[in-house]
C-alpha cells in the first residue's frame, strides 16, 4: 500500500505530468514523421531523462514511446506512408478511408483504438509481470546466463531475414559489451591497450552513446539518402467528424479483444515487435469480417475495422513488450531495449528484485504508462488538425537538428567531464556510421543493442555458474530451467532454418 501511494505520488505531480505530456507531444511528432522511429525518439530523449528523477525520466520516455507508436498512423492514413513500421498495416484501410473522404473518422478511430490497445495491454502488464518476476526468484547464475542467451538468439533470429547476419550483429554487440574492465578481476580488457588505456574508452563502451549512435546518427545518415525529392506534400484535407460512433466501436469487440491479445503476446516475445503484430491482427480481422455471419464491414474495403485492428495491436505491443523488460530484463523490441537501458543506467535491476525492492517504481511506471495513454488520446483528438501539419517540416532542417541532438545527448551523460563526454560523442558517431552501413547491407541493429545490454549479464552469470560448479561446464544441463532456456535458444535458431528449407 505504501509503495502504491509512493508510486502515485511520483507520477501525479506537476513536474512529472508536464514531462510526460512533453514526451507524448514529441512522440506523436516523431511518430508522424516518416523515417523517424519510436526507438530513435526514445534514444534521443534518453540523456534528458537521465537528468530527471527515476519516475519522471521513465515517464518522459514512456510518453515518447506511446506517442510515437500512435502518431505513426497519421501519415499512414493521410498519405499512405507509415510514419514507422508500427503503422505498416494501417495504410490499407486508412488510406482508402481518406480517399472516401473519411480521413477524420480514420484518424479518430486510430486514436481511440490505440488508447484501447494501450490500456488493455497495461492491464495485462500489471497482471503478468509480477507473476513472471516471482518466477525469476528460482533463477541462479546458470538460469540467468541461459536466459540472456535466449534473449539474444531470439532477437537475432527474428529481426533478420538472414539468421547468420542476426547472430553476427548480436555477437558484435557482445564484443562491445565485453570491452572495458573484467567484471571479476578488474583487469584491463580492451583492444590496442597501449592506445586505448589512456582514453576514457578504458571503461568500455557506454550504453547511451551507443544507443544514440545506432538509432539516432545512423538514422540521420540513412534518411539523407532520401532527402532529394523535397518535402512531403502536406495534406489539404478537411478533417471532419473525428470521434467514431461508440456503438460502432462496441460492435467490433471481438476484433479489439483479439488484436489486444495478439499485440500483447507478440510484444511480450523478445525480438518480435509491432510490425509482426499489426499484420497478424489485420489478417485476423479480415477473417472475422469475411465470415458470412459478421455484420461488420469487410476489412480491406476502406473501413474503420481495418484501421482499428492494427492500431489496437500496435499499442497493445507497448504494454506487452514491457512485460519481459520489467520481469526478466529481456526487452520485447528495440524500443523497450532502450527503455531497459534507461532503467539499468538508473541502477534499477529488473526481475524479482525490482518487484520486491523497488515496487514503488513499478507502480510509477504503470501509472506513467496510463497517463501517457490518456495524454495520447487527448492530444491526438484535440490536435487531429494540427499534428498532420508536421508532415510539412522539411527533412533538410530536421536531420541536422537530430544529428546535433544525438551528439549533445551522448555528451550530456558524462555531463561534467568534458574530455570523457567528447569521447562519448565519438562513440555515438562511430557506431552511427557502423549502424548506417549495417542497415544498408541488410544487417539488423537490434541484436547489437541486445548484445550490449545482455553481455554483462551473460558473462557474469556464465562465469559465476561455472565457478560454483567447480569448473564443470555441463552445469547448464543439470538445471531444469536452464535446460528449458537452452532448448528455447536452440529452437529459435533452428526453426528459421527449417522454415527456409520448407519454402520452395
Amino acid at each position, binding site marked *: 500500500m505504501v509503495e502504491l501511494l509512493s508510486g502515485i505520488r511520483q507520477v501525479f505531480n506537476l513536474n512529472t505530468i508536464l514531462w510526460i505530456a512533453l514526451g507524448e507531444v514529441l512522440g506523436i511528432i516523431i511518430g508522424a514523421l516518416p523515417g523517424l522511429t519510436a526507438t530513435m525518439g526514445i534514444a534521443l530523449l534518453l540523456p534528458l531523462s537521465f537528468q530527471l528523477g527515476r519516475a519522471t525520466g521513465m515517464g518522459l520516455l514512456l510518453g515518447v514511446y506511446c506517442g510515437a507508436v500512435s502518431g505513426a498512423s497519421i501519415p499512414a492514413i493521410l498519405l499512405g506512408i507509415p510514419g514507422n513500421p508500427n503503422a505498416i498495416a494501417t495504410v490499407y484501410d486508412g488510406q482508402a478511408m481518406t480517399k472516401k473522404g473519411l480521413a477524420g473518422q480514420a484518424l479518430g478511430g486510430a486514436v481511440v483504438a490505440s488508447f484501447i490497445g494501450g490500456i488493455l495491454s497495461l492491464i495485462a502488464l500489471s497482471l503478468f509481470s509480477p507473476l513472471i518476476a516471482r518466477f525469476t526468484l528460482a533463477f541462479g547464475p546458470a538460469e540467468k546466463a541461459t536466459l540472456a542467451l535466449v534473449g539474444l538468439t531470439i532477437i537475432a533470429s527474428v529481426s533478420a531475414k538472414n539468421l547468420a547476419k542476426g547472430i553476427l550483429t548480436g555477437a558484435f554487440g557482445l564484443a562491445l559489451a565485453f570491452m572495458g574492465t573484467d567484471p571479476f578481476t578488474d583487469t584491463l580488457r580492451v583492444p590496442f591497450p597501449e592506445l586505448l588505456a589512456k582514453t576514457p574508452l578504458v571503461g568500455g563502451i557506454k550504453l547511451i552513446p551507443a544507443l544514440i549512435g545506432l538509432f539516432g546518427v545512423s538514422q540521420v545518415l540513412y534518411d539523407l539518402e532520401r*532527402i532529394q525529392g523535397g518535402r512531403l506534400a502536406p495534406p489539404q484535407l478537411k478533417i471532419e467528424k473525428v470521434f467514431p460512433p461508440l456503438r460502432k466501436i462496441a460492435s467490433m469487440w471481438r476484433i479489439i479483444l483479439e488484436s489486444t491479445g495478439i499485440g500483447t503476446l507478440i510484444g511480450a516475445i523478445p525480438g518480435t515487435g509491432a510490425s509482426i503484430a499489426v499484420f497478424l491482427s489485420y489478417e485476423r480481422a479480415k477473417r472475422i469480417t469475411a465470415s458470412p455471419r459478421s455484420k461488420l464491414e469487410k476489412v480491406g474495403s476502406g473501413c474503420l475495422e481495418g484501421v482499428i485492428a492494427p492500431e489496437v495491436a500496435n499499442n497493445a505491443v507497448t504494454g506487452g513488450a514491457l512485460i519481459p523488460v520489467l520481469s526478466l530484463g529481456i526487452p520485447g523490441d528495440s524500443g523497450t531495449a532502450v527503455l531497459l537501458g534507461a532503467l539499468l543506467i538508473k541502477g534499477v535491476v529488473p526481475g524479482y528484485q525490482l518487484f520486491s525492492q523497488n515496487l514503488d517504481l513499478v507502480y510509477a511506471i504503470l501509472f506513467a504508462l496510463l497517463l501517457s495513454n490518456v495524454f495520447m488520446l487527448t492530444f491526438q483528438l484535440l490536435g487531429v488538425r494540427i499534428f498532420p501539419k508536421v508532415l510539412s517540416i522539411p527533412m533538410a532542417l530536421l536531420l541536422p537538428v537530430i544529428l*546535433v541532438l544525438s551528439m549533445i545527448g551522448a555528451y550530456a551523460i558524462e555531463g561534467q567531464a568534458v574530455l570523457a563526454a567528447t569521447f562519448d560523442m565519438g562513440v555515438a558517431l562511430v557506431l552511427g556510421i557502423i549502424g548506417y552501413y549495417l542497415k544498408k547491407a541488410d544487417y539488423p541493429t537490434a541484436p547489437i543493442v541486445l548484445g550490449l545490454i545482455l553481455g554483462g549479464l551473460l558473462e557474469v552469470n556464465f562465469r559465476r555458474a561455472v565457478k560454483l560448479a567447480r569448473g564443470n561446464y555441463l552445469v547448464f544441463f543439470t538445471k531444469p530451467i536452464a535446460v528449458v532456456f537452452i532448448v528455447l535458444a536452440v529452437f529459435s535458431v533452428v526453426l528459421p532454418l527449417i522454415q527456409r528449407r520448407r519454402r520452395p
Partner: protein
Amino acid sequence: MIGDERGWDPGSRALPIATGFLMLGLSIYLILRETAKEQEEQTVPSGARKLILLTIVLSVLYILAFRVLGFILSTAILLFTLIYFNYHENVRLKLLPRLSVGLISSTVFVLLIYTAGRFITRSLFYLGRARGYELFTSKVFSAFVVLLFAAVLFAVLLVFFRKTVNKPETRSLIIAGLMAAGVTEGLYLVFKQIFLVNLARGIVFW
C-alpha cells in the same frame, strides 16, 4: 590473467574469444555466400552520397573542435552548414561564396543571442539576490525568460524576412541561419542552464 584459474573461473578471455571465433566463422560464411551470388547494387544519388560524406566529415570536425571552439560556435557552424547544403540537396563548389557570408552572419547572430541570454540570466540573478526575488534566481525561470525572448525575436525576424526577402537562395540562407542559432541557444538553455551539463565554452569565455 593471474587469478582467473583460481576458483574455476573460465577466465577473462573465455567469452570474448568465443565471441570472436563466432564472429569470424559467421563472417567467413557470409563473405563466401555474398560473393557466390550476384549482389544487386543499391544506388544512392550522387548528391545524397556527397551529403552523407559531408555530414560524417563535419561531425568528426565538430567533435575535434568542440573543446576548442566551444559548444555555441561549433554547434552553430555545424548546423548552419548542414542545413544550407541539405536545402540545396547537394554539395557544390558554387554554393561556397554564399555559405561563407551566411556562416559569418549566423555566427555573429548566435553570439549576439547567446550574449543577450547570458545578460538576461545574470541580470535576473543579480535582481533576485539584491532585491530578494527568489523566483529570479531559479535557473528554470531564467531559462524560460531567455527562451521567451529568443522566441519573440525569432518570430519578429521570420515575419520581417518573409515580407522583405523573395529570392529563394537568400531565403535558404536566412532559414539556415535562424534555425542554427535557435537550436543552438535552445540546446544551451536546456542542457547547460537547466540540467547543468558542462558544455565546453571554448573561446566563447563569457
